[in-house]
């Protein structure tokens, strides 16, 4: 087995799960496996460019973002995005679950996210969902650490503003029965 082979297997063993989760968080369930495979195919092709150590993961996220962007572009990004949002309840009736207030806010934060630029959405997801640090964000976004931090800071502010604008414009619902245990 060559060094490149060993490196690839190590990469796959270590990061298949987080990369799969990354894709799961961003696309439809039926696309997750294909997208994950594509990411590792790219990693195989570019094995010499994969950063060493834990920096490999944000690099894989950068690749995954590109793969998913192409998926969305090919299939009609807005439609796909809408489907994804629908999967979390945006634009649909809330699922038969326990706390409606939580669902309303969850839906509203997703709506607020959808109003941000794609790059802002991604830096927020990478920070909050994938838990990347500033230097890891820089690798995933392929920018300097300072630029990554600035992008995150701006995105955080815009997310809160976007949420509050939605909040100011919405009406409470009888059906939701604020805070009800439905």
């Amino acid at each position: 087995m060559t060094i490149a082979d060993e490196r690839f297997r190590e990469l796959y063993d270590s990061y298949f799960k987080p990369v799969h989760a990354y894709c799961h968080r961003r696309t439809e369930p039926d696309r997750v496996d294909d997208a994950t495979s594509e990411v590792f195919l790219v990693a195989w092709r570019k094995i010499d460019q994969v950063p060493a150590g834990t920096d490999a993961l944000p690099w894989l996220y950068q690749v995954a973002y590109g793969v998913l962007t192409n998926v969305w572009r090919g299939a009609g990004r807005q439609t796909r995005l809408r489907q994804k949002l629908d999967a979390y309840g945006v634009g649909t009736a809330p699922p038969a679950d326990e706390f409606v207030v939580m669902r309303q806010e969850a839906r509203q934060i997703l709506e607020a996210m959808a109003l941000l630029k794609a790059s802002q959405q991604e830096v927020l997801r990478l920070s909050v969902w994938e838990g990347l640090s500033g230097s890891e964000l820089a690798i995933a976004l392929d920018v300097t650490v300072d630029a990554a931090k600035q992008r995150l800071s701006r995105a955080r502010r815009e997310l809160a503003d976007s949420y509050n604008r939605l909040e100011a414009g919405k009406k409470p619902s009888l059906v939701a029965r604020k805070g009800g245990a439905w």
Partner: protein
Amino acid sequence: MINEAQALALLDEVNPVPDLESYEVEAAEVTPQLTTLVQRSSEMTQLDTRRANVSPRPKQPTFWVAAAVVIVLIGAVALLLSQTREVAPAAPVAPIPHSSSSTMSTEGVDISQLVDVNDWIAYQGPGPDGTAFVFLVHPGGTERHKIGEEVGASGLPDWSPDGTSVIFTTRGGVTEPLYSYDLATETSSEVFACEDPCVADDEPSYSADGSQIVFTRYFGPIVNDLPSDCGLWIGNVDTKQVTQITSNPGCDKEYAPRLSPDGTTIAYHRYDENGFGKRTAVFLIDVAGGDETQLTDWSISAAEPVWSPDGEWLVVSFDPEGIDRSGSDLHRMRPDGSEVEQLTFYETVVRRPYHPRYTPDGEWIVYSLHSSAGTELWMIPAEGGNPVALVTGGHFVHPAWQPTP
């Protein structure tokens, strides 16, 4: 208004894969296949190297063959894994024949040694289109079936103390009254009249002797999509007479009311309207009305109090909505708020126990356990102890255990 930190906390809440540890895609499972793949690719690489000594041109095409193999094999492995992955709630439940029964829990505990597996558990679950309905299921997950379907969407079930009927709330229609489903006749009937200005009744719960039902009522007119008044009510099962206990103009109301076994006190939770809108606290009020007593601090976000059958304890969900991200668990306390004891020890926000209810004999506490895999029914001994899975593979909330008819 929310600030940046609150916005990020909300975003974290909607993470489709909140916990990578419990995300069941095991790379380790594919190692044998991957080893084969790498060995094959290694052989190809060695072959390519030998060829390269003769001519540099063949290397690239052979590499692409290897890459194609990588795609196919990784895709196949991923497809194989997808057959066993549990990352989404299971499909809506359908009736399951009794012959498929299993009383073994996921931990290998024989449930039939602990409880009567012929009892029913009423719960709220999703129908095929996501609409909520009330279902019955035996401990172990057998004979699941919908009840009261003819009255439309339904939920929040509670058993009559004699175990012969299930009361539940409804959604849809001009008004939304409470209904009761009779197990013997398999029919549902309206419990209390809900006529103008009543627009809906909600969250019903029987008194221990079965003579009364405490519930919440919504009054019109609807202003800005909100009822003008909401509050606690109590109704007599035989006479159908209802009595108002509290009034909350603007509908900042009480939730999940439960009558104490002696019928004198109602426990419930309400939301802190001065906070972020999600923090809750547990309160008590005399069944005749008057001032309410706050039992828990807002900072705990306690909710869903339920009385032990002897009235000595209240079981309460601490932070059932996972607001603080520091863990949600069931606790019990004396009705004066003293002697708080932790009963479950999940201590994580990604597995949250809530909707606790005592079994009628007071020996167990059944509850819903929410995780990325769904919302399952579990139980623990009333004094605390090891959790036992009752019904898994779906979405089961608001469980209520049938008293022995």
